[in-house]
């Protein structure tokens, strides 16, 4: 049934935006937890765990996100596990985020000079205390701009979840466009909403970057 584009449509789109935000947050929670493990393994002294981390990162970064989505959405039912779209999307985005965040954080950890480890060790700090008080605070500062940058990518990439039927901003836009036959205004609005979400983050990331290179 074809209907006119009306004033409620932007509201529906704005409501759908929260699912974009929700799936991003879920993916970040999962991706950050797994990414920490990847970063820890990737920067550890153990060659086997370094190799495992590198293999994981290579695998994730070498396969398109869309393929991961299909893999979890169509793959699980083969084993008799039926997964709703949001869950498949969460798992796929988490796996994907962990590969990128893990690599960003590994790089940040390894960029802290060895001498910082030595100085804190020679004061009697244990390994975990070194990490907590000396290494991680400095690594966080280095990792924040690229991490925020990645989050911006992730927000935009959640639009892919629309292909497995998860109703987030893009899917809502598709449905509205189909119902009203007014794709141009609808997708302009969709674009504007993504922009409204991403641009402040990009600006923030730039600000962090400048602060990082400006001092301390």
């Amino acid at each position, binding site marked *: 049934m074809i209907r006119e584009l009306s004033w409620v449509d932007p509201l529906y789109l704005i409501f759908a935006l929260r699912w974009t935000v929700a799936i991003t947050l879920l993916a970040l929670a999962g991706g950050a937890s797994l990414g920490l493990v990847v970063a820890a393994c990737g920067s550890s002294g153990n060659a086997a765990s370094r190799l495992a981390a590198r293999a994981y990162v290579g695998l994730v970064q070498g396969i398109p996100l869309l393929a991961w989505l299909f893999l979890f959405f169509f793959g699980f039912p083969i084993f008799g596990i039926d997964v709703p779209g949001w869950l498949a999307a969460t798992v796929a985005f988490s796996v994907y985020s962990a590969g990128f965040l893990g690599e960003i954080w590994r790089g940040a950890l390894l960029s802290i000079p060895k*001498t910082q480890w*030595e*100085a804190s*060790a020679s004061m*009697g*700090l244990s390994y975990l205390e070194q990490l907590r*008080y*000396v290494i991680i605070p*400095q690594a966080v500062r280095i990792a924040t701009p690229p991490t925020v940058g990645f989050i911006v990518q992730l927000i935009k990439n959640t639009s892919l979840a629309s292909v497995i039927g998860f109703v987030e901003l893009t899917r809502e836009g598709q449905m509205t466009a189909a119902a009203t036959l007014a794709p141009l205004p609808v997708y302009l609005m969709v674009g504007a909403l993504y922009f409204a979400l991403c641009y402040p983050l990009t600006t923030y990331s730039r600000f962090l970057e400048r602060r990082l290179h400006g001092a*301390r």
Partner: protein
Amino acid sequence: MALVELRSVVKRFGDHVVLNNVDLSVQKGEIIAIIGRSGSGKSTLLRCINGLEPVQSGEVLVDGVAVHDPKADLRKLRARVGFVFQSFNLFPHLTVERNITLAPTIVKGLERDKAAVLAREALKRVGLEEKLHAYADQLSGGQQQRVAIARSLAMSPTIMLFDEITSALDPELVGEVLRVLENMAREGMTMLLVTHEMNFARRVANRVLFMNQGTIWEQGPAAEFFQSPKTDELRNFLGSVLN
């Protein structure tokens, strides 16, 4: 008993022998300067004393702790052995105060406010009370190195190890750091210094060690050591650095 006792210490990096059967005994209150060409093993010697480098064989006994033992309580040891690096190695994300209070609060469990008093005292000893709230990148190299010394002092170490601590400094900043060392020497601190400052070594050290090819090639009381070197190697070395 000696404060530091090294017995037949051997340290290798791969096939390369860095310390070859080194014996050394350091008494409480002694100030020992270690000189030698780069690659002669002098920095490694210091790093073996606080366990930064494990040794392949021999014994390293420091203030009653068997450092060579893989089960050694390095935390306890390092709380009493101060180490100052050539590149200062202040923690850039922390204020001067927190740099100094970090180890006392974490390793010794001291309360923050008590540690803060300690930090102020330590900074006073190096003449930098006013830099309490500064960050490392707001300080000159000489000031950073004095903060690094204060950071070690705040742990009330029984011995201090200094690894070429003036080598990274502009010449005009060397003096302020050496003056701090001289004050500590006067207060009776046991110190081992790897240094290129021959005049300083002559003036302040009780004993000077010349390291060559991973061994303590020659040693003696400062005055005698510089006045009449016994080996050709030392004579050549002194000739090249003093002229």
